[in-house]
């Protein structure tokens, strides 16, 4: 069971790396923003899987904080985009 | 007995008051700061008197024993600085009532600075030293930026960048010391360092000395100083000139004497002597070339701190006493000079050496005060400036270090040249002698200057006294006790 959880986490890390490509390459700012958000979400999932896999509930707190930061980031970026007409 | 932690805690906690109070009622910042500083001064004098009369006053915060807990110590080496900080803060506060920025935030920063500087003086933990260094640093960056001009913000930012790099280099050194020994307590470090592997201990020493040299502003690392002192409001410049670099130099001396003896002494001594020599020569040269009097005084600090470092490098009891006397004397004289510069800028609208021409006739009393302070900075007897240099030179000759003695002598000659230039302008130069005063100054401003002038003269005979105080501490250091006292 533990192995599967950690394997899943590894898979998500790979997916996150794929998404990072969009952050770097993304032709428009919107692409990058959505990609950054996706990376954040993936990180939360990875942290949760690691917490379950290593039986370390402390990591769940980290995942929660990260999710919160990700939420703040999305709203902040969204507002920034609207206000500045896409200039980042 | 009073807990030395209060010396730090009172101003730090008190710094919360002016910011809040001045928002509720304007003009409450100054009296609150005065009250807090009075309490702190009484505590400081009390603790210092106890430390100088008998045993050093020490405590472990929260009662956790060394080397795990954080130790605080007021001994004969730190007591003079604790008192200096408290009293200088009071004197400059008298000046800022009319002269300085008067916002509540300013007085909060003021108290924060005093708390941080006192912390640097009393802590026996190298990491805590970093924290207090940064607390006082942050406060001083904010205070420099209090001036109205935009140039002040840029000067403050430069001060911040350079100062933070210095503090971070020091922190890096602390990291090496920790890796080498596994402890951060000064006493434990001293015991463990010589046994630690050489490159680690040497890296720790090198980085910590380098970081503190930035804060002291020795020659190639000084670039923040003239800009910051010139752009800051006069009261702030005086306070920083009196305390900021002085306390960093104290920390450097404490580290060299109490933590690092036995680690590559020859190399470090040579490097520090080189830095000091560069500071003395280049500082004097830059001072000679400055047009603005504030800049001239800032550059002169480079040379003066070079001399102090010479004393710490020579490290005979006489030379160390000389360094302590010179640090305190320089603080008093330089603060007084900056206050005079601020006062004259206010009353006669003069700032450059050229504008000072003929000032002695327009403003005889203030000019006389400035002359006394300048003669003290040069090192003419019977001022405290002479006492410090004399003891350092004496120590250097005792130790047979002719280079060091020659450096001290040279610095006096250089001082005569660059400060003599200002005095010559003031007393002999032909200026617009009929122009009346352009502004008024408060009694507090004159009082602060008078206190500095009187202290410059009165402290002239303090040398033997300091030597007597320091003797037991230095004996203890020689005997290998890191804090210089039998626990």
């Amino acid at each position, binding site marked *: 069971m533990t192995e599967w959880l950690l394997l899943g986490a590894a898979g998500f890390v790979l997916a996150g790396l794929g998404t990072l490509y969009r952050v770097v390459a993304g032709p428009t700012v919107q692409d990058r923003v959505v990609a950054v958000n996706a990376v954040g979400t993936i990180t939360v999932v990875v942290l949760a899987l690691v917490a379950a896999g290593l039986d370390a509930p*402390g990591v769940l*707190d*980290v995942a*929660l*904080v990260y999710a*919160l*930061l990700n*939420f*703040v980031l999305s*709203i*902040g970026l*969204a*507002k920034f985009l*609207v*206000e*500045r*007409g896409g200039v980042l | 007995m009073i*807990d030395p*932690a*209060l010396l730090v*805690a009172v101003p*730090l*906690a008190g*710094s*919360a*008051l002016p*910011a*809040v109070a001045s*928002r*509720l009622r304007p003009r409450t910042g100054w009296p609150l700061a005065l009250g807090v500083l009075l309490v702190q001064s009484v505590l400081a004098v009390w603790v210092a008197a106890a430390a100088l009369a008998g045993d050093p006053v020490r*405590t*472990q*915060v*929260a*009662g956790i024993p060394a080397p795990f807990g954080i130790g605080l110590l007021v001994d004969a080496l730190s007591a003079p600085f604790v008192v200096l900080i408290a009293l200088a803060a009071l004197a400059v506060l008298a000046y800022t009532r009319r002269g300085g920025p008067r916002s509540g935030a300013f007085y909060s920063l003021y108290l924060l600075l005093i708390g941080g500087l006192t912390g640097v003086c009393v802590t026996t933990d190298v990491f805590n030293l970093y924290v207090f260094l940064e607390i006082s640093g942050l406060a001083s960056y904010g205070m420099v930026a209090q001036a109205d001009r935009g140039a002040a913000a840029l000067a403050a930012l430069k001060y911040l960048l350079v100062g933070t790099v210095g503090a971070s280099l020091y922190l890096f050194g602390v990291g090496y010391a920790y890796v080498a020994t596994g402890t951060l307590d000064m006493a434990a470090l001293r015991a463990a360092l010589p046994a630690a592997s050489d490159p680690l201990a040497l890296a720790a020493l090198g980085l910590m000395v380098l970081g503190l040299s930035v804060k002291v502003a020795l020659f190639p690392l000084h670039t923040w100083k003239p800009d910051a002192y010139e752009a800051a409001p006069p009261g702030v410049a005086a306070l920083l000139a009196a305390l900021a670099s002085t306390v960093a130099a104290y920390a450097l001396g404490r580290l060299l004497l109490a933590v690092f003896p036995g680690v590559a002494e020859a190399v470090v001594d040579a490097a520090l002597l080189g830095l000091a020599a560069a500071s003395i020569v280049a500082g004097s040269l830059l001072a000679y070339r400055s047009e603005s009097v504030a800049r001239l005084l800032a550059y002169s600090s480079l040379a003066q701190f070079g001399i102090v470092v010479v004393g710490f490098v020579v490290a005979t009891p006489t030379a160390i006493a000389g360094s302590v006397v010179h640090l305190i004397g320089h603080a008093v004289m330089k603060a007084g000079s900056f206050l005079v510069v601020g006062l004259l800028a206010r009353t006669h609208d003069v700032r450059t050496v050229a504008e000072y021409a003929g000032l002695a006739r327009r403003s005889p009393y203030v000019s006389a005060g400035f002359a006394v302070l300048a003669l003290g900075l040069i090192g003419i007897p019977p001022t405290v400036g002479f006492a410090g240099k004399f003891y350092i030179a004496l120590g250097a000759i005792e130790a047979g270090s002719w280079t060091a003695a020659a450096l001290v002598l040279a610095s006096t000659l250089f001082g005569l040249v660059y400060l003599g230039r200002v005095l010559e302008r003031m007393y002999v130069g032909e200026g617009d002698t009929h122009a009346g005063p352009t502004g008024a100054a408060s009694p507090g401003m004159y009082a602060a200057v008078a206190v500095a002038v009187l202290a410059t003269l009165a402290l002239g005979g303090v040398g033997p006294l300091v030597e007597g105080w320091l003797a037991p501490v230095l004996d203890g250091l020689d005997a290998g006790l890191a804090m210089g006292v039998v626990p």
Partner: protein
Amino acid sequence: MKPYHESPVVTHTVRVVAPFILTFGLFTLLHGTKSVGGGFQGGVIVASVAVLFAFAFGVSQTEATLPGVRIVAFAALGLLSFAAVAGAALVVGRPFLDTTAFGVSPVYPVEVIEVAIGVTVASVVTGLFFELARADDA
């Protein structure tokens, strides 16, 4: 520059999420003595609520509900309560900051200190955000 219209999605989400974030901040803050967390972390989480509200409803409106003087007062309150707990040990004749001085488990004084730190950190971070955001508007 296009004027910013409050999006009902954003404002509503922020409204719903805020209490949970505050609770989580408190949880983190109080858990500092035995697990991940503490005053700094909890304080920053609490401050993020103010940031969220500013994003959702606009900086000026949020600042009107939470004026600067109150923020500074909270910061001072935290600092002074820390000093009070630390100094109280002196009254009992123990060293400064000695948390074992009060005849109760040291966890309780430490929790009070954590809350004090949390209050200070939250208000300072909020204040900084408003200060920088306001300068941006000007």
